[in-house]
């Protein structure tokens, strides 16, 4: 095992509702690695096993067969300390705003750190810290979470996980249903967490654009299997993978492909908006 890997999954399989007519194989011999300090994007169509995979990272699901090692903790060992594990890996589910329950924003954010047993004065500091990390105004602390807008609620929910000071943050569709501006802010905040707080980020999505924008490594899943992994260039150059996982190229790449089909001398292996802008403007020089 490489020293720097934080989450290491090998040959992991998982079946839901075993022994019933509803039995479905959610994961089929999945290999996955996330190194310390990386942003890894997991992408794939609905029902491809993304959510099942990430629930193994903090022990919500235990490996049925195969191995899961998180920061040196072997999850196949039955007496693994789940509290320790959940301190290390913060998992934010899709639409996390539905998990808020406290009377005030501050109390809700304090729930996680209190559960894992931090001292009261430290909890106060952590609540403030994570609120500012998620760009929440300190004046919000005493408001009811149910009076906030959808985007704010989601940031409160993520702050609630950040307050536990995880080494890795796993986000399931963190920008689903947000307006474009909030979406951009959210992605910036995630990148910020990675750069400044050195948090390993695993981002699950079914939209190529946001994954390409921030992830350094991309894992493509389909029907419970990992069908490709690597950087954007390695993944997108394989059109078979893109087609079989029913994915769309990032919009800017799609544009470059169309332009080159029209006979313009542009590269079409560019995946970020910046790179594409540069390439197009170079045409006019």
């Amino acid at each position, binding site marked *: 095992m490489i020293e720097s890997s934080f989450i290491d999954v090998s040959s992991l399989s998982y079946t839901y509702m075993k022994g019933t007519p509803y039995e479905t194989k959610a994961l089929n011999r999945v290999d996955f690695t996330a190194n310390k300090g990386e942003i890894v994007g997991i992408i794939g169509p609905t029902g491809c096993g993304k959510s099942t995979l990430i629930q193994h990272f903090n022990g919500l699901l235990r490996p049925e067969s195969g191995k899961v090692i998180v920061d040196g903790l072997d999850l196949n060992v039955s007496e693994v300390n789940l509290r320790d594990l959940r301190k290390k890996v913060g998992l934010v*589910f899709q639409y996390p705003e539905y998990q808020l329950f406290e009377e005030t924003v501050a109390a809700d954010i304090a729930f996680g750190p209190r*559960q894992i047993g931090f001292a009261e004065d430290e909890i106060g500091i952590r609540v403030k810290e994570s609120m500012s990390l998620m760009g929440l105004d300190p004046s919000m602390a005493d408001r009811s979470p149910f009076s906030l807008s959808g985007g704010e609620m989601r940031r409160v929910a993520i702050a609630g996980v950040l307050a*536990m000071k995880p080494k890795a943050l796993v986000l399931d569709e963190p920008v689903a249903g947000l307006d474009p501006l909030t979406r951009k802010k959210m992605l910036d905040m995630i990148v910020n967490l990675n750069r400044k707080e050195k948090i390993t980020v695993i981002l699950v999505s079914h939209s190529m654009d946001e994954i390409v924008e921030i992830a350094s490594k991309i894992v493509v899943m389909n029907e419970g299997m990992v069908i490709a992994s690597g950087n954007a260039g390695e993944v997108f150059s394989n059109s078979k993978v893109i087609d079989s996982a029913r994915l769309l190229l990032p919009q800017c790449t799609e544009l470059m492909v169309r332009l080159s089909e029209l006979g313009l001398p542009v590269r079409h292996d560019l995946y970020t908006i910046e790179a594409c802008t540069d390439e197009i403007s170079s045409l006019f020089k």
Partner: protein
Amino acid sequence: MNFLTNITIGQYAPGSSFIHLLDPRYKIVILIILITQCFLIDKWFLLIAALLFFVVISFFTGISWTYIMKGLKAIIPFVAITFIFNSVLTPGRPIISYVYPDGLIFGFNPSDNVSSGQLFSLNVTAEGLEFGFFMSLRLIIIVFATSIFTLTTSPMEITDAIESLLQWGKPLRIPAHEIAMMMSIALRFIPTLIEHLDKIVRAQMSRGADFESKSIVTRAKCFIPVLIPLFVNAFKTADDLAIAMESRCYKGGEGRTKLKDMKSGWKDVFALSFTLVFSAVLIFLQFYDRVSK
């Protein structure tokens, strides 16, 4: 942590067996007849016959035996409690007694001379054992029969059938459509709520909530972070549903048509007649000796 999705008792298992394809209205009537019959008979061989009848029927559903049994396992505690309570609490001839402070006594006879300072006694009586056995057997048969019904009939079919059967109650001003609509909405949202519940439980577990703690207090405290989001969610869903129904001009049962009309044929008539004959035979055997005397 998959306990919520593992509840299989009575969950519809799609299929196309003879039992699946019966008209749900007939199935309800058949179920009522068979359950009533179970309470009319109290001879052990007749109850066993009734149980065997359902075992045979369950083979015609095409549903795996292990799946049916998995659902039935859930009632074992209820059967055990029924049996124990009946055998201890029914008055009659004691077979085993526990008398404080003398201890266990077998074949205890009340006229026996036991210590006069007896404070407390529990008697397992012969009548109690018999009655407990019958009640447990009836309970098993009823749950078995009902789960065969719900395993082979989708919730929508059940509510449609109930609505249709309740039409007979129109002179009594029974709001058949409204009852059926409430039932189908309730049934429809059970899986949705379970799904939400499951998700919220997982989210709160990720935030350190300890549902597997040995301390009951710790576990009980974890229910607030689960129940509040669940209720908030349920009200929101109810609101959305109301708007969706109104925007599609829902105005009650008047003039509403169905996607699938229920049709009955010779198969249903056959099943009903077969049930009637079977029940008649059992009930005849039950009262036969009384009649002949």
